[in-house]
């Protein structure tokens, strides 16, 4: 089809597969940071201190309203102005982690707010302290509700990793660009990158949907 060269494909495929490893690593690391930081953002928005709540809220709102690719540049180029040098990987993980932490904090918040007030009151009337109430009563119920959103953003972060190529993280897109400019051929590398993303993201999305059903069932929660 249109000068599609299979031997070129077999030449470059090993490099792309190797780069896929970096893409997956970036997704998992970024998501790990986002998952933890997102919880911090969500919980700090529920403290008694109005000023803290407000500041975190505005920060999250700001991150969510501005482009990730610009944030990646910002972290990478601005830090040296203040005397800190970040490697592309570090800068990329900070930017993508912060960005998705903002999204996830909203998912967590919605999950926490979906837990009925009666659950808080029951926990209070049993003298459970705030930490135990969160960790044993509220979050276990909030997380299954949040699971669908969390899954979407896991796939989302995977699909946003190509933006890391702009500061030189050697993930899939960066490798495809390199191959393209070495051989002056873009058809095969870009198409293969697209296919690799499809091969990863479609089954992941499907698996997450099935996992959600399973988790709710296992926790004895009604399915939605």
């Amino acid at each position, binding site marked *: 089809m249109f000068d599609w060269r299979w031997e070129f494909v077999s030449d470059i495929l090993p490099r792309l597969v190797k780069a896929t490893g970096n893409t997956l690593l970036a997704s998992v690391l970024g998501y790990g940071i986002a998952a933890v930081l997102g919880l911090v953002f969500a919980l700090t928005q529920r403290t008694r201190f109005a000023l803290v709540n407000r500041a975190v809220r505005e920060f999250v709102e700001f991150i969510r309203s501005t482009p990730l690719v610009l944030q990646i540049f910002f972290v990478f180029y601005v830090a040296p102005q203040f005397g800190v040098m970040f490697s592309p990987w570090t800068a990329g993980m900070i930017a993508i982690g912060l960005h998705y932490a903002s999204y996830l904090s909203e998912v967590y918040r919605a999950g926490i707010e979906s837990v009925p007030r009666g659950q808080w009151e029951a926990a209070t009337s049993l003298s459970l302290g705030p930490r135990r109430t969160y960790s044993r009563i509220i979050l276990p119920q909030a997380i299954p509700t949040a699971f669908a959103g969390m899954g979407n953003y896991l796939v989302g972060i995977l699909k946003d990793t190509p933006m890391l190529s702009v500061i030189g993280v050697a993930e899939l897109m960066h490798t495809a660009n390199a191959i393209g400019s070495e051989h002056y051929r873009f058809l095969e590398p870009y198409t293969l990158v*697209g296919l690799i993303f499809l091969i990863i993201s479609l089954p992941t999305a499907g698996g997450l949907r099935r996992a959600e059903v399973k988790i709710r069932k296992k926790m004895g929660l009604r399915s939605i």
Partner: protein
Amino acid sequence: MSYIEFLTSYGPQLLEGSVTTAKQTILAATLAVMIALVAGLMRLSKNRFVYGTATVYIEIFRGTSLLVQLYWIFFVLPLFGLTLEKFTAGFIAVGMNLGAYGAELVRGGILSVPRGQWEAATALSMPPGKRMRRIIFPQAFLNMLPPWGNLLIELLKGTALVALISVADLMFMARKINGTTYLSAQVFGSALIIYYLMSRGLVTPYMRWLERVMARKLGKIK
């Protein structure tokens, strides 16, 4: 160089980039809405070919990255004899990508209209086209406006990627200025603020206004 001096020297360029970003956003949004309507309705079709076509489109555009799609449209399509100018390639990629997400909102919005409404329209002998246009869709539209507000912000953010195929938008200008001045904090900080103002100062208020107008039209008090 103070920030004021920075703004007087480079503000005009950032503004110029912002105008391009606004153009990209409006064009991409128009395309996305059209694609979303068509693909969303196709997803509700009983005809397997129609349904299947829309599903494949949606899965491909949601299953891969916007950046990959943009590069593919700009660098690979010419090999198939379809050469797009970079500005056009930019908003088409963004519009097609977000349109795929929008299609699912359209589908969900239509399915959210209660069965009784379909049945009542059918009982009045309305043909399917009229039923959709006059009874179902207006109600669905109101239901899907809030998620569209978020989607349009994603779209605005998505247009920043067209800078990578050298469309001279806000992102592109910011990089250019950074490359000559190395005033990274000022340049990228300003660009972030402009994007924020566009999102929360233009897109969000516009969508809120639209929600109010539509709610009033449909007789729902808000």
